[in-house]
């Protein structure tokens, strides 16, 4: 009796194993689906062609490139103020470093202070509803609660200054932000994606380069 009971567990365990495999495959596929579908469902103002271009580029990054399935590629949350990068970069000809001015000197690229935005927008486009939102934050002495798009886990130390000063263009990782009406995550930011670039560029790539 005891022997038979013990063996009765085997099919159960097998079922668990199979179920786990199927579940993980299913959720992975679903995540990929969601990631691909997300831009279309989340926004109407986004240009799907831009997204598509970004996805294709990731896929074309060579045999080392990791699948984007488990990352947030395409993640594009709605922002409290609809900030259009193209208007500022292509229209006004501003450099990335004008606003993200610590990217060359700090691990943190920096966000413009609300004051910096208001430096121009006290005069420029003051009638726009989005700018009026900005002005409201400023007059209320509140920072704009931007939604984070690009994020690496807390156990990853990513020094922006080392990359920017080393000649890596912002667009290499962040995509053509100057063409994105609403910013989305362009690269997978997976570890394989990082290591791939480190190897290509002949810089150290052992774990303690980033993990400590």
């Amino acid at each position: 009796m005891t022997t038979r009971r013990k063996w009765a567990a085997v099919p159960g365990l097998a079922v668990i194993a199979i179920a786990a495999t199927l579940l993980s495959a299913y959720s992975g596929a679903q995540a990929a689906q969601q990631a691909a579908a997300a831009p279309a469902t989340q926004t109407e103002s986004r240009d799907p062609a831009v997204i598509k271009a970004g996805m294709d580029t990731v896929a074309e990054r060579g045999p080392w490139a990791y699948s984007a399935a488990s990352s947030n590629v395409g993640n594009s949350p709605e922002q409290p103020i609809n900030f259009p990068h193209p208007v500022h970069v292509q229209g006004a000809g501003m450099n990335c470093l004008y606003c993200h001015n610590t990217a060359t000197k700090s691990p943190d690229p920096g966000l413009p202070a609300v004051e910096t935005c208001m430096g121009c927008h006290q005069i420029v486009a003051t009638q726009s509803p989005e700018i009026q939102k900005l002005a409201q934050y400023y007059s209320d002495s509140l920072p704009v609660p931007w939604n984070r798009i690009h994020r690496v886990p807390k156990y990853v130390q990513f020094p922006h200054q080392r990359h920017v000063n080393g000649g890596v263009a912002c667009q290499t990782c962040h995509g053509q932000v100057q063409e994105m009406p609403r910013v989305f995550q362009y690269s997978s930011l997976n570890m394989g994606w990082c290591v791939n670039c480190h190897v290509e560029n002949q810089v150290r790539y052992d774990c303690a380069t980033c993990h400590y």
Partner: protein
Amino acid sequence: MSTTSGSSGVQRRSFLKVLGASGVAAGAIGCSSDRVDKLIPYLNSPDNTVPGVSNYYATTCRECSAACGLIAEVRDGRVIKLEGNPDHPLNQGALCSRGQAGLQGLYNPDRYRGPMLREGDALVPVTWERALQELNTRLSQAGALQNAVFINQHESGSFPALLDEWLASRGMPPHVSIDADVNMPSVEANREAYGVAWPALDFTAARLIVSVGADFLDDWGAVVPQQLSFADARAKLTEAPRFVYIGSRRSLTGLNADEWIACRPGTELMVMQALAGQMPVAQAAEAAGANAAQLEALVAELRGAGSSLVLAGTHGTNATEVARAAAALNQSLGNVGTTVLPGRALTSFEGLSGASALKAVSERMTSGSVPVVFVRGANPVFTTAPAAGFAQAFQSVPFKVSFSSYPDETTVLCDLVLPDHHALESWGTAQPLANSIGMQQPVMKPVFNTRSTADVLLQLGSTGAAAAAPAANGDSAYRQWLEQRFGGGVDAFVAAVTTGQAQGTTTSAAARPALTPASADPSTPIGDTDGEFFLHVYPSPLLGTGSGANKPWLQELADPVTKLAWQSWVEIHPTTAQRLGVENGDRLTITTGAGSVTAPAYIFLGVQPDTVAMPLGRGHTAYGRYAKDIGVNPLVALPVAADSATGAMAYSATKCRVEKEGSHDQLVTTEGSARQHGRGIAQALTVAELTALQNGTAEEPHGHDIPGVPSYSALPGLRSPIAADAQGELADSSAAQKGMYDPEHWSGMARRRWAMTIDLSRCTGCSACVTACYAENNIPTVGAPWQGRATSPVTWDERPGANIIKGREMTWIRIERYYEGGEDNGTDFETRFVPMLCQHCGNAPCEPVCPVYATYHAPDGLNVQVYNRCVGTRYCSNNCPYKVRYYNWFGYGEPNRRQYAFPEPLNWQLNPDVTVRGKGVMEKCTFCVQRIREAEHRASSEERDLNPDEFTVACAQACPSRAIVFGDAADATWSVAQMAVDQRAYHVFEDLSTFTAVVYLKKVNHPAPGAPVQA
């Protein structure tokens, strides 16, 4: 197969259903990718601030009276680390554990959030306006303000002057300035003999140091400068002074001595007289229970030593007499001006009120004549013996005001609490040395709704009508007050603030009233009191007389002598313990005429057989979650006895009875064994052996020859094959593929070999490095009562230090303390301190056993632990011969867990450059890889290579002995590469062929002249 199900209520099928459903749920949570974080920009960008890059501000430490210079590292508006100011004349960049833990005073979760007012039995929060109004009203109604009392924690600089000015303007007498940690008899004797409160001590100029109970490495005087000088003296090796300690207990200072002459408490004066030739040695030795031969030899040695240094810092009823005798001896031996330097006096000890001032205050309060009492910083209810009745006297005052920001024993009795800023939030000045001003500036915005007491006083003004809000622009009124009085004006003030110091003298208060002559308080001679044992109570080197107890770093840090944490203990000699049938941890009740305390026994070779010793600092009944109900306060059992000259409380002037209570506590110890068992962890040689080595008359000691390692004996400090390989020395042409360890590898990863040397002749075991490591590397403290494990679904192990009892402390670097000799339980034993941290083995036993490759050897010599790879098998820890890997058992870094080690706002201190580890992860010393990376980033941004000794690790930076040197051993221009090839160099457990990157330099012992040379 049976069709009936078993007796179980849950059938297998339904179990699988549940499992499947929960699996889906877990999968859904685990794969969620829609978490949205916020990115909050500045509203207005502050000047000179780059997010993610630290700013460094110079300020002054206020954790003890000495007033060392600080550099506060501020990241994005929060202080994250305190280091010594390298340019400060007093501490020269070093900082003790207590100073570093000031940060946990700033971020203490139990600080008052704002002003508090008594309503009935409780203190309730009120607004500042309401609180100041209350103060004014009560002051105007109080009457007889000429009898008011203001007790201030002693500090040098301008604040005492401002305070007395304000007190005078309101018709109140000057304040009382006390510091329970300062040995007042020594101050009194110094004033009489040298005209200064505390002369500088130059240990390097001495050839013989004699300390009679003066614990200059524990808490006697300004510990950091004294330790710097002592370590420098010891680093002279063959020319170093010999150090003899005389006393009833070997403190940390005593353990650093080459020789201990034990004597009974209270007999130090006779020993001193024998040293001075005023009493026959035999007679003194007889009375003191000391070894006459040892004493005789010391007398002769002292006569012939040339330059010497005699120190006394006892706590008996004749403490001032002993200190006077020491001063007289220094004068007669010609030490004044060579080793005792009154000309470079530590002026921060000037201005202390006499030790009997508190007693006088207490008497006046009892008599009912005091209408109002103010307390700021000091905690006299805790630091005076309950038998003296200070608490009752204090409570009899109708209006009690505290400026403390902590709920300490004194403050909880008060009627009004006006919490002061922490020192790191306030302006101020200090006078650490004559003609040297220490500048104190706020290094961050206040954490809570506190106000600088100086500002409050200035706003109250003389009329009291103002009770104004702080200046509209947020400027401190006290800053303006300081600027106006600063020599050179505002510009000079600003310039001084940036460097943290200036030449000159601060506005200072009038001299404190002269010492009240000894009140008619005939001290009872010890021999007449009741009991078999002498009771020796001493201030803890970490907690002082109690102010450190609310800082978890200091509670967790093992006492340098006993290696105990989170509890009080009774030190008892092994022979006495054997006689009484006492084992380690047996609870002993110490009873005197005044009362009794019970604490576990700690069997200690360094205490006299007829003496039991207990540390001060614990046993708080208030003072926040980390201090309350941890340990016992031995002052409870201390009868009122005072030094006859100064009235200072006598800690070791009573006898006691010792009884076994019958129960047993486990000792909260971080120690495995106090003996080396022949393992050669802490190695030492005598001066004679070192001289022979230097003269080439002795063979250079080196380990075994390792086949295939050609450079092994040639490079004592750099024996690792990987290190050699990195230098191309082993360049074996047959090894086709060295991968990233190839020095010519395209990534350049293997160019450097990070290494460390630790000079055991310098190390005093003070443990400042341990606290520095906690601060730098986000190491959780694990001993608080709520951090224990679950013993059932509803009960928890709530003993303080429960995790440490189970060996779960997280000290990435620890100080191991080993005894040599003394197997006969005699006084002749030697102590060796070894800082033990990850040795970053070139051939690491931990690496090959990791099943997930979470630990590996970096090409630049680091043994790396990758937290995000680690799955917590703990194989690495089991295989580590040094036991320097620590397992995160309970997720101390995860805020939602019961065992969370950083309750808000303690988590503000966390270093953003270092991952906060979660549950189930192995962690260990990283050689401060974040500092290496930071330096590399900086060099890269400036398009240059790293400069030699450009940066160092946290433990080396803090070390007040300068024992630790860190750097690139593959580059001979770094100091560490030069230190590592020293003749004294050795590796711990080098027989294991671990090829460590940590090189120890052997301690050098100085046996008594004529003593048999030990092998």
